[in-house]
């Protein structure tokens, strides 16, 4: 992420200078910063609503029931998370909301799932395997009905807009499955997370050695 952040900004400035668009690039900083706050603030209300709803769903045992239903799947995909944890139920509910195109509900519930997964994370500043899997599945954007796209197609007078659903579903399924497979491969290849305490200890030891 460090490099991507660096290169996105450096390349933008260089390319902006070459294309004679440096003023646009500078102005976009302010616009981007403003937009971020707008996005975050527009989330507050709907976030509060779904966090409230999810609290009821959790207390009445609904999340637990859903977790039990999808246990066979999550057991394989999220092996760090205990089966009876509310995290499993939250993950399932977030995906159902996503698949149905309920983005407004999916994001708050997904964040709740992340908070639950964070409880089982050994290093609170770095992403656990379960989180990487969850986000990989999320970024693949599995959705049954691409409602916004169909709306645009209708607005331009497209004769049969629903013909777009089948190919979209095929593509999104391929992307979704490959995201899962790639995450599984990377889980094995990537350096495992170190528990936060041991890394802190190691750093101390190294410092001692350096000073000695």
């Amino acid at each position, binding site marked *: *992420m460090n490099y991507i952040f660096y290169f*996105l900004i450096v390349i*933008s*400035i260089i*390319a*902006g200078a070459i*294309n004679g*668009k440096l003023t646009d690039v500078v*102005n*976009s900083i302010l616009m*981007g910063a403003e937009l*971020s*706050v707008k996005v*975050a603030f527009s*989330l507050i*209300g709907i*976030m*509060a*609503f779904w*966090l*409230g709803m999810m*609290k*009821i769903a959790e*207390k*009445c045992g*609904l999340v637990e029931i859903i977790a039990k239903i999808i246990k066979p799947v999550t057991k394989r995909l999220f092996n760090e998370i205990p089966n009876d944890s509310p995290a499993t139920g939250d993950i399932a509910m977030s995906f159902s909301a996503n698949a149905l*195109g*309920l983005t407004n509900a999916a994001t*708050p519930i997904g964040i709740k799932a992340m908070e639950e997964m964070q409880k089982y994370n050994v290093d*609170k500043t*770095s*992403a656990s395997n379960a*989180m*990487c899997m969850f*986000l*990989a599945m*999320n*970024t*693949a954007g599995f*959705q*049954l*009905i*691409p409602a*916004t*796209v169909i709306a645009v*197609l209708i607005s*331009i007078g*497209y004769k049969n807009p629903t013909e*777009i659903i*089948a*190919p*979209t579903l*095929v*593509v*999104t399924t391929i*992307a979704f499955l490959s*995201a899962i497979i790639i*995450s599984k491969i*990377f889980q094995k290849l*990537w350096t495992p997370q170190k528990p936060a305490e041991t890394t802190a200890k190691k750093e101390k030891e190294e410092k001692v050695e350096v000073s000695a």
Partner: protein
Amino acid sequence: MNGIMGFISLWALPFIILLILTMGLFKRVPLYETFTDGAKDGFKVAVNIIPYLVAIIVAISMFRASGIIESMENLFAPVLSRFNVPADTIPLMIVRSLSGSAALGVFSDIANTLGPDDYATKLSAVMVGSSETTFYVLAVYFGAVGISKLRYALLVGLLADFIGIISAIAVCNWMF
């Protein structure tokens, strides 16, 4: 087909809300208190995300404003035209992982200028419909729990996006 889809998207949300509330009432959960107790965190979570969103959204706004996406269009056009990919859809492939609103903007633009019968309209419709904005998702979800070391999450997201683009091209070539 159309009717069923419409019914599902209309009733999904009301159904979930009814299910949660009814089951809560049935199990004697104090609905109002539990709701407000959970909702309290809404503000905190949204505010926690801001630094992560600013980092990502500002970097991506700068990237888009720099005109580099147009330059990439010229670079990739000759290669992609061999696979029957119209040059108009190239900015979409890049922007799709970066910004959801921009991707929708590019798509509307293609649809409105080229019209409903053009292949580019169909291909871009499938590309937009089958994607989620990888950078935004990572910023929001990791931001909410304060994680800054993403490990392989971004790489997987981008690889899956890339596979999505290739399969969109293949499927559209075959179907339309």
